[in-house]
């Protein structure tokens, strides 16, 4: 099932301008980079990116930057505090007439899951609480990618990371629900695989004033262990297996923008990735695979039941 589209029918309708130039030093096939490029394309060029330490800060290595917009680098824990400072400065400059209103910029936080879900959560929680008018994009590669793929609270159940060589024993922290519980005007999950869904969500959020939050599954070839060419296929499998639900919450009420009616078994998504190989070789770990499947089934049973009533 797909929701009706209000702004873009197909990828052909997306704006043609690019605000992330080629030539960045990020990995070949980085799904986080695809997300950022598409996000920026739709959001437009009048943006200041507030970027917490992580893979994406490597976009800009001396003396190069792929961004055609402005950029501020912050510590892992404080991108939303940086966004508050920029938003306030822009507002004051415009209000006092020192900056023409048409030179206003959108403030966009760009942060990995480690920063978003762990260290930076308190500054974001504060910013949402204060109703800061900003955009937040988390590219969730499910680990601390930049420093060697250590486990983060976004690392999913059973996945291998540098610090969980036997597989993580926990489930991902649910950042969508943590954000939603603050009642911001808009929260969404997006995927580099579905550019139209991503673009539609930006358009739906655009008129809203306040925190507009997005989390994207960022396929990561070296961290997850797959050939870069498979990146889009894995992003698609995450949606088709139901592991990565595409949804949004406007003023707190949730709607799924795609409901996979005939979900593929989670193995289809897990097996191609080296971080899950121990679940298949040398012996199949049916207990762990079943636990992952059960969590997905539970999620969708509840989601479908509530969405139908």
């Amino acid at each position: 099932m797909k929701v009706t589209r209000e702004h873009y029918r197909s990828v052909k309708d997306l704006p043609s301008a690019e605000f992330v130039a080629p030539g960045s030093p990020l990995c070949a096939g980085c799904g986080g980079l695809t997300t950022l490029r598409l996000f920026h394309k739709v959001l437009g060029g009048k943006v200041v990116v507030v970027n917490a330490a992580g893979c994406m800060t490597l976009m800009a290595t001396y003396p190069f930057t792929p961004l055609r917009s402005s950029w501020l680098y912050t510590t892992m824990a404080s991108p939303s505090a940086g966004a508050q400072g920029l938003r306030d400065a822009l507002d004051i400059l415009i209000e006092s007439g020192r900056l023409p209103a048409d030179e206003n910029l959108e403030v966009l936080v760009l942060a990995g899951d480690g920063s978003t879900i762990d260290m930076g959560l308190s500054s974001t929680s504060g910013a949402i609480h204060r109703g800061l008018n900003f955009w937040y994009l988390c590219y969730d590669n499910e680990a601390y990618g930049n420093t060697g793929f250590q486990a983060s609270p976004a690392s999913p159940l059973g996945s291998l990371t540098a610090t969980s060589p036997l597989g993580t024993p926990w489930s991902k922290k649910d950042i969508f629900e943590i954000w939603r519980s603050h009642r911001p005007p808009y929260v969404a999950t997006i995927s580099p695989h579905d550019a139209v869904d991503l673009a539609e969500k930006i358009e739906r959020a655009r008129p809203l004033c306040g925190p507009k939050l997005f989390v994207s599954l960022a396929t990561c070839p070296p961290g997850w262990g797959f050939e870069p060419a498979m990146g889009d296929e894995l992003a698609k499998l995450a949606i088709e297996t139901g592991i990565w639900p595409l949804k949004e919450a406007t003023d707190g009420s949730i709607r799924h923008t795609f409901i996979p009616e005939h979900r593929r078994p989670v193995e289809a998504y897990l097996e191609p990735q080296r971080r899950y190989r121990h679940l298949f070789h040398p012996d199949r770990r049916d207990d762990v695979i079943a636990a992952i499947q059960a969590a997905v089934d539970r999620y969708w049973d509840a989601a479908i039941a509530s969405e139908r009533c």
Partner: protein
Amino acid sequence: MSTQTVRGAGLEQRSVNRDGFGPSGPSLRIRVRFHGRGGQGVKTAGRILGTGAFLSGYHCQDFPVYGAERRGAPVASFARIGNRPIDERGVISEPDLILVADATLLDDPAAGVLAGNEAASALFLNGNPDAPLPDLGNRLHLIRWDLTGAAIGRLGRAGALSAGLGAAAARFVGIVAEEQLVEAIRSEFTHLGLSTGEVDANVAFGLDVFRALPTVSFRDVAETEEGLGDSVVPMIPADPLAGGPNVISPGNATLRDTGAWRLERPVIDRDRCTRCGLCLIRCPDGAISWDEEGLPVIDEQHCKGCLICRQICPIHGIGLEEEARP
């Protein structure tokens, strides 16, 4: 593989008398530097050499260095081997042996592949032995060999060269026996979590290389001994202002040549393309754009060769060409 030939002045099927260099023999120290791109395995190659030397009874160090960049960016690793304890520390600026996994690095001044080559006894270049070469200076023994071809033959893919590169280094250095090399490859790959089948394939790849290449002669031991000093090589601190991008030149990353990161190149079949635009949307780097005829065109200076475009093209209209490596 007909392209696999060995060439270069001063090579010999030599005869290191390993016992002669044993702990009680004359001092021996060999400094090795590997260059490659992130993902090609120079770090593991260094470890294989170091472990192989250690298992053969020598002292050794091995360590990599990489910057903030990612897969495909220039990476180096180092190994020191000797028959006495090694107190020297730091990067190797005057190596005895240089191994280059990717000859496109010769064109990248920042990679510094030839830095200190005047002191080196030998330079190994992975690549076609007949391709034209830039001026390398004439004091090097040059060994050109198609390691990538050998990797494709054994592993079925070009990407990870570490077992072959480590085996080549072990062979040139001449003090690691076949048995210890195999043990080193096994231990390094098992440590990386590879399956038994993959470990075996890498051992076979390493042995192919080890048996095909000769050892090289190094500068006189006495000469080496002069430079034996156990010092800490100073790292020169960088200007803190050089730590960030030039944000007043937005989009200047286009000046970079990330196209050199590719091993294989996607090629669009312009006659069959339906102009659906999916490749353009899904390219992580935005390296595809529409041309005047309304067809997608790939920016070869920047395409990193992830091949997502090829994988997702609904009509399978994107082919593949092996990148011509120098």
